[in-house]
């Protein structure tokens, strides 16, 4: 298939792997632990597991799966709020499919739907707006989720609703921004990361500049990476090159999509509709300053949090859950106490087991190659 197979060519992969192997040995020599590279984005985690990249890499490299799955980092309290919204009789709640199964403290949206709430799966916020046009007697709430990748389409949908004078459409806004969270990870005392694979689609919107502090202040290399398996390998090779030459720069492997300055139109739309929240709660990581956005006052009529009274409860993560440590890269999914036993994709306890982009779910579904003996058989 054109424009796909070129990025999955096994021969190219072999060549790159040989180069990676040579470099990794040089870089790791004299160190008492493997080189730790964090892929920030859940999309990268998915590619790494789906293509079996983890097993292809030499033992000197260990990939650490970062916090870049927006569904996974959604705190339980927000899911509860969303369920409460969905249960309003006049509400049609629209959501991306993978948010349906995220467990709240009482139930998921999927369970709320089974109990009679009108919850509908959409592929884009404009689909939600179409539903609002078709059902003027209902309030259509869109469960807005994701990083800068999905923020522009939500913002543009709000602007479209304003243009058309649609009054029965609003957002339950849970958009988050990745930069403060990367900073929080870099500030954690037990940090053991040598470099980052930067999120390709977020970077397409925000450009390269927001990452500069990682190179300047924290002296770590970051390579903005695409999502095909060869993209990942090439980006790892680029990070190793930097480490070998003791450079720490922001480089862009995903030049076919990401421009240095990002996408101005998208940035404008975001700026127009959203503003930073003082704090936003991340599942497993806690409250992080300026890490989420809300709808600006000027668009209050499109903000479900202002239109409805929302319980806004804080629910603590289950105690046995070690998602936070996995997110920070200090614990591997399989070493979590509940991984594969009480926490499985069918009955996720922690956030990272919920979405296919979550580190634990990806590890569970695709990756347990090295844990056949060490863990109890999952029941199916």
């Amino acid at each position, binding site marked *: *298939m054109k424009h*796909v197979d070129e990025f*999955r060519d*096994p021969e190219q*992969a*072999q060549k790159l792997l040989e180069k990676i192997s040579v470099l990794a040995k040089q870089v790791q020599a004299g160190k008492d632990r493997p080189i730790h590279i964090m892929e920030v984005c859940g999309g990268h985690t998915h590619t790494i*597991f*789906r*293509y*079996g*990249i*983890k*097993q*292809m890499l030499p033992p000197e490299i260990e990939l650490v799966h970062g916090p870049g799955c927006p569904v996974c980092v959604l705190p339980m309290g927000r899911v509860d709020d969303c369920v409460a919204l969905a249960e309003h009789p006049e509400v049609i709640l629209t959501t991306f499919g993978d948010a349906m*199964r995220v467990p709240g403290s009482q139930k998921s949206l999927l369970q709320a739907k089974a109990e009679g709430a009108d919850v509908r799966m959409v*592929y884009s916020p404009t*689909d939600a707006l179409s539903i609002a046009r078709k059902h003027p007697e209902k309030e259509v709430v869109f469960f807005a989720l994701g990083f800068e990748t999905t923020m522009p389409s939500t913002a543009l949908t709000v602007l479209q609703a304003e243009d058309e004078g649609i009054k029965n459409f609003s957002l339950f806004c849970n958009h988050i921004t990745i930069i403060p969270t990367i900073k929080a990870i870099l500030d954690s005392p037990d940090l053991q990361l040598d470099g980052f694979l930067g999120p390709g689609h977020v970077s397409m919107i925000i450009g390269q500049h927001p990452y500069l502090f990682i190179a300047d202040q924290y002296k770590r290399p970051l390579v903005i990476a695409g999502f095909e*398996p060869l993209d990942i390998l090439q980006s790892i090779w680029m990070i190793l090159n930097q480490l070998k030459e003791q450079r720490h720069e922001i480089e862009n492997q995903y030049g076919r999509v990401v421009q240095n300055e990002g996408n101005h139109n998208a940035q404008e739309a975001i700026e127009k509709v959203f503003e930073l929240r003082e704090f936003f709660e991340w599942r497993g990581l806690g409250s992080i300053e300026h890490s989420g956005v809300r709808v600006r006052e000027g668009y209050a009529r499109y903000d479900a949090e202002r239109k409805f009274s929302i319980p806004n409860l804080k629910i603590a993560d289950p105690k046995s859950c070690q998602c936070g440590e996995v997110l920070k890269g200090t614990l591997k999914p399989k070493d979590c106490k509940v991984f594969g036993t009480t926490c499985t*994709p*069918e009955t996720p306890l922690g956030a990272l087991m919920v979405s*296919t982009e979550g580190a634990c779910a990806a590890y*569970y*579904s*695709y*990756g*347990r*190659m090295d844990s*056949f003996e060490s863990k109890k*058989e999952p029941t*199916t």
Partner: protein
Amino acid sequence: MNSSNSKSFIPPVTGKSQTITLAHGSGGKAMRDLIDNVIVKSFDNPALALLEDQARFDLKELTSLGDRLAFTTDSYVVDPLFFPGGDIGTLAVNGTINDLAVGGAVPLYLSCGFILEEGLSVETLRQITESMKKEAEKSQVSIVTGDTKVVHRGAADKLFINTSGIGIIPEGVNIAATRAEPGDMVLINGYIGDHGAAILEARGDLALKSSIESDCQPLSKMVQAMLDVCPDIHCLRDATRGGIATVLNEFAQSSNVCIKLNEKEIPLRNEVRGMCEILGLDPLYLANEGKLLAIVPREYVERVKEAMQLLPEGQYSAVIGEVVETPEKRVLLKTNFGGERIVDMMVGDQLPRIC
């Protein structure tokens, strides 16, 4: 995925004024008319025409065909009722035929229960019974007994069908999910995921256009042809909901073996692959309605494959993997890219009401 070469799919005309009412399920004259003029007319066969409360079979005739009776049932709730490559009727007949076929049975008789929603057009029902008849004839199977119920509007979605079927298993055939052995080979009879992709597209809420058609087809003739060249087929199952990943996991778990697949060998249409790429679906989990997975002793694999390839339903048959000892109860996939990963059981539901 190219709209210029997509076949336009025209849903059936439902303009005729006649609709199903509660009277059609009341047991009275309206019901009798419906059964006579739509159902019996379509399914036309001597056992049904008697309109007794049960179909009756000659035991001697049955025992002459084999030494075991196979019996199965399945309900069909697909949405939409009509889709490229088939409709709920073709599914209801072939689904049950295939459940018999993969036990090695020669399917003979089906029952058919309809649950109709008030307001359904009679013409729609007629089209569905006609396609059921057509599919049954392809496999020389008769629909010999049935039932019709009508429920209030909203109590069912248009039309649901249940079919049960009986068939005869010839002597010496012993197919079971527990029989996969290290050294065996894994076969499939063609492209995977067509049905799931066709239904997804037919629902129309994706704004995608393609030429993908459901693979809904009967498999019993092919299974008998396979058994002719290899009476000792170890495992056989049709890969419907949950796709080939689910069936292979069932084999691996029941037989305590590992199944190793080679992604490169798995037949997948470009259109289906494209749809999966766009939507983030894994074709290994997409539903099929005319695909089976066979596990056969290594020394027979080429002969079985050739026998399959001689028939239209097996034209694109391929050897996609092998059975090894460890890790037990696992399905592994060697990716095109050169890596290896686990193929697990499906979690949740990729898509509801696909069959």
